[in-house]
């Protein structure tokens, strides 16, 4: 169980950008879009068999030809005088039917990713995921940023459309990032890497749907490209956003009107300056959550 590098590129103080699938696939779509747009070159992988159950078998004329596992791959690209390593995990190594990675395997995978980062003298890591929020799908998602070191806070304050946990209403700087997108941040801290997790907001009523949420991936990518000081063409992400947006709107129209009315109020949640008809109160927030939960229970688990 280990790392396989096909080549050893000459990289100068590279930055690592890593992601695994999660809610709305927000992080992985952002990172994979950036990788694709920059045409980053694959240079290695984490051997999968100890982490994953195979995902595909090919049998031809009675002979087992091929067994395919979820991939965990490394890519690199020099852009604007800066070297970037990408890590993209197709699945999180879960145990015992859990949704997100945790425990020994997750810790081991996080360490393998950072082993590669360390080998190439990387000191800065970005991860990305989703932030479930009381927002509406017609508004622009913010990006919640969580650094693993105090020294990164001034830098984050300079990002546009980005908030620290202390600025999230009612959270008091606390929260939890589940799965490897979060764990990597912690393991990076333990090993002395500076790291930031960028989480795109997804409306609470969309978190259980089997749909990606590229609108939030775009917000993440805007912040990430600003931080990396690179320009990225987001046309493909815009197309995907429009396509998914239509499906979300169809779903939204199926929600009973009394619940939809509650959700519509989320359009008016304003973070800096309250807008008419005013920000929702705590009591209203509670009622919206209860109505949403009831609706999804009726639908049989929300998906």
């Amino acid at each position: 169980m280990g790392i396989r590098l096909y080549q050893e590129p000459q990289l100068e103080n590279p930055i690592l950008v890593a992601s695994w699938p999660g809610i709305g696939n927000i992080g992985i779509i952002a990172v994979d879009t950036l990788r694709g747009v920059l045409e980053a070159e694959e240079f290695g992988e984490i051997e999968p068999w100890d982490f994953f159950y195979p995902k595909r078998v090919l049998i031809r004329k009675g002979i087992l030809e091929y067994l395919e596992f979820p991939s965990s791959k490394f890519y690199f690209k020099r852009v604007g005088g800066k070297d970037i390593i990408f890590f993209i995990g197709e699945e999180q190594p879960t145990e015992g039917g859990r949704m997100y990675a945790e425990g020994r395997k997750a810790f081991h995978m996080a360490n393998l990713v950072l082993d590669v980062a360390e080998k190439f003298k990387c000191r800065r890591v970005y991860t990305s995921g989703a932030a479930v929020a009381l927002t509406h799908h017609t508004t622009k998602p913010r990006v919640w940023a969580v650094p693993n070191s105090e020294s990164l806070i001034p830098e984050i304050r300079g990002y546009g459309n980005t908030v620290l946990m202390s600025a999230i209403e009612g959270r008091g700087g606390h929260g939890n990032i589940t799965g490897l997108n979060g764990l990597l941040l912690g393991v990076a801290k333990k090993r002395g890497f500076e790291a930031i997790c960028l989480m795109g907001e997804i409306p609470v009523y969309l978190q259980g749907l089997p749909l990606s949420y590229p609108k939030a991936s775009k917000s993440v990518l805007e912040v990430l490209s600003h931080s990396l000081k690179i320009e990225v063409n987001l046309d493909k992400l815009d197309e995907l956003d429009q396509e998914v947006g239509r499906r979300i709107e169809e779903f939204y129209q199926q929600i009973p009107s009394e619940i939809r009315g509650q959700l519509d109020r989320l359009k008016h949640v304003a973070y800096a300056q309250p807008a008419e008809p005013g920000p929702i109160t705590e009591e209203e927030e509670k009622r919206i959550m209860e109505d949403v939960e009831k609706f999804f229970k009726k639908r049989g688990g929300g998906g």
Partner: protein
Amino acid sequence: MSQGYPITIYKEPDLRRSSLVLGWSEDMGNLGRKVTDYLNWELRGEEFAEIEPEDFFSLGGVAIEGDLAQFPESKFYACQEHELVVFQSGSPGVEWYKFLNSVLDVAEHHCRVKELYVLGAMISFSAHTAPRQLLAVVNSAEMKEVLGQYDLARDMDYQTAPGERPTLNSFLLWIAQGRNIPGVSLWVPIPFYLAAMEDAQAQKKVLSFLDERLDLKIDFSDLDQKIREQNEQLAQVRSRFPQIDDYINRLESNLMLSEEENGELIKKIEDFLREGD
């Protein structure tokens, strides 16, 4: 044996060039358990090793089956006279790669296994009166060639459908391929209305192949008797319930039943066979 693998060896078997037959306990038609039980009974298989469960099975309690508390078991039996190793186990829920390698570690290092036979059952929408087929998937062209002289369907094309995952049998075959152990995964289609019960004919089909291939000289008289009894029971259901007879007639004519009809057929057959037990 690899370091740290949770294998307990009770007694070293005296095997020089053996074959390993592997069956999962919770197979369709109970095929894996029944065939491996039969081999152990007929060939006096002696338990000699097991894989400890804690790394591979959820041990948050016990399952209850047939009024009895169950506990995951993964046991090896040696039929020394016949150079045969039988492995019977529940399907592990986690750490599949480690588990399957543990099986092959015991096979290679303690039994000098030269060939692997993995048992599996699949759903068939044919009637129980149709002859059982045996399908084979191999992990090497040489193995395919060797099996050419037996009554096997050996040219299957298959690709995992979206949303599905490969079977544990394919995973094992692939690992064995990497360790240069020739292997075959044997698949018997079982009529859907016998999938939750037993299918003695399917058992006989697999056992007959193993008997011929491994020269086991099995006396099948008791299994033949069991097949006759099951066929008689099924004939009784047909004569007692014209609707069921009609459904089976249609299956015999290669016609499909509706979902509701399938459900009715399954229930009636299962109820009747359970009463007869």
